[in-house]
């Protein structure tokens, strides 16, 4: 068997060529054994690679690993948590990756545990993703049978709540508390799980790290842009012929991505970018833009968790926004007043607008309240919810006026394009 580095420019890195879950044998046949990389060299490689977190924050991965390492030197050790919560309802990419390539993620997790000298290693997922939990447990068993490593990787399952995958909420749950966000600072790298310096890393990011450990930083940079190197997993849905998860270099245009998802089956009106904490953008403003951070920032957005929902003109953006906003308001952890009191007030008022039962002054109220609650929670849940709302009010401005005057439009009754998960009661 001969193994070679995938050619520079390869954009199919994380996902297998065929949609068949890879067991450990298949993984080793394709990638070879996980190399041993000295901690300093691993973090250097990550920094040179320019890899950024794929859980939504887009923060430089190498900087994060180094910060945890430095904090851990004060004694006590570090904790590493792979974040497989994927609480974003329109995102499937983490589950997809864990189903087909669990061992690449586990390799990345091992690299993180080694580089940081972790004393506790956890994968955190969500109760509703029971298939993922099963795939992970099976993969871990396979490795334990094969490996001489006796590292214990815990699988921990949290509630299916929108904010339960947020870093500080996840840390609370792993520390044995309810999965509710906490005030920062201290940041996780300073004081996380059981007050130890903690690395929380999205599972896609860990898979990229595993490839960087094998093939190097410059290989990683051979696709994408200077600021957004590499590839990204995307969940493409809405008015595309073959919705699903795909992988694209970070300098790919939205148009090319939609083509790979089978093209549009109706004329697109808008794209939801990033997820439910993301932003609506008019289709013609974004269609020929690339998905790298600089490009998306120029339309006020970000790739977030890699969600792209193409909304056709025959879907009512106001009704979709109304449903999601009501869901998000119900997902507040109820800890911070501006979120707990503000989001339901905003959602109720917007619902009145969407159903033609509001006075025109309601729009000004929504704008003022949106400004008021943004930035005022312990976590960014209120910020995300109001970005979703205010960008909808911008992009669907004409529809908004119609709804204000006449209530629901002829497309309001169509089935929901954006998925709304069943609301779970507990926080454990």
């Amino acid at each position, binding site marked *: 068997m001969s193994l070679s580095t995938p050619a520079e420019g390869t954009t199919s890195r994380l996902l297998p060529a065929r949609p068949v879950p890879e067991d450990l044998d298949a993984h080793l046949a394709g990638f070879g054994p996980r190399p041993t990389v000295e901690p300093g060299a691993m973090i250097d490689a990550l920094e040179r690679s320019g890899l950024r977190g794929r859980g939504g924050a887009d923060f430089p991965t190498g*900087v994060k690993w180094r910060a945890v390492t430095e904090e851990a030197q004060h004694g006590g050790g570090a904790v590493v948590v792979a974040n497989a919560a994927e609480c974003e309802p329109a995102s499937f990419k983490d589950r997809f990756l864990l189903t087909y390539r669990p061992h690449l993620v586990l390799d990345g997790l091992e690299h993180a545990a080694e580089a940081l000298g972790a004393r506790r290693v956890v994968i955190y997922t969500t109760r509703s993703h029971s298939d993922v939990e099963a795939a992970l447990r099976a993969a871990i068993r396979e490795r334990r049978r094969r490996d001489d490593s006796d590292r214990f990787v815990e699988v921990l399952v949290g509630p299916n709540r929108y904010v339960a995958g947020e870093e500080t909420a996840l840390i609370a749950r792993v520390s044995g508390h309810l999965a509710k966000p906490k005030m920062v600072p201290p940041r996780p790298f300073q004081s996380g799980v059981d007050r130890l310096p903690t690395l929380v890393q999205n599972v896609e990011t860990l898979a990229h790290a595993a490839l960087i450990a094998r093939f190097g930083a410059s290989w990683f940079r051979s696709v994408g842009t200077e600021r957004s190197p590499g590839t990204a997993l995307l969940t493409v849905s809405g008015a595309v012929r073959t919705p699903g998860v795909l992988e694209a270099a970070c300098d790919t245009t939205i148009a090319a991505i939609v083509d790979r998802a089978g093209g549009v089956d109706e004329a697109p009106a808008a794209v939801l970018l990033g997820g439910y904490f993301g932003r609506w953008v008019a289709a013609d403003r974004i269609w020929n833009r690339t998905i790298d951070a600089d490009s998306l920032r120029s339309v006020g957005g970000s790739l977030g968790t890699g969600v792209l929902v193409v909304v056709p003109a025959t879907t009512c953006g106001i009704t979709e926004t109304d449903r999601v906003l009501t869901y998000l308001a119900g997902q507040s952890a109820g800890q911070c007043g501006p979120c707990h009191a503000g989001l339901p007030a905003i959602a109720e008022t917007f619902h009145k607008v969407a159903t033609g039962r509001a006075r025109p002054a309601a729009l000004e109220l929504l704008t003022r309240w949106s400004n008021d609650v943004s930035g005022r929670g312990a976590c960014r849940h209120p910020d995300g919810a109001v970005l979703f709302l205010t960008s909808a009010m911008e992009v669907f401005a004409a529809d908004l006026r119609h709804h204000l005057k006449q209530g629901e439009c002829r497309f309001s009754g169509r089935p929901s394009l954006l998925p709304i998960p069943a609301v779970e009661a507990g926080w454990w």
Partner: protein
Amino acid sequence: MVRVRLRVDPIKCKAHGMCGELFPERIRMDDWGYPVIESRPLPDDLLEHALRAVADCPRAALRLDPIDEPGARVRPDDAD
């Protein structure tokens, strides 16, 4: 002189409204009774009022935070 600014811990805050009464120069109340705090650095002549608001918060949710000097190196503090 360390520059400081006022911050509220929104998890601790339960909208008693004391701070808005004591320090209206920098704190207003939103429509639900929770404080909206200007995050600009506090000048010396406002420090006394700010300290009184901090001391009298019944939930001990208000605090004065030092403002980091600009140019500090990138840390995960910026990630969110």
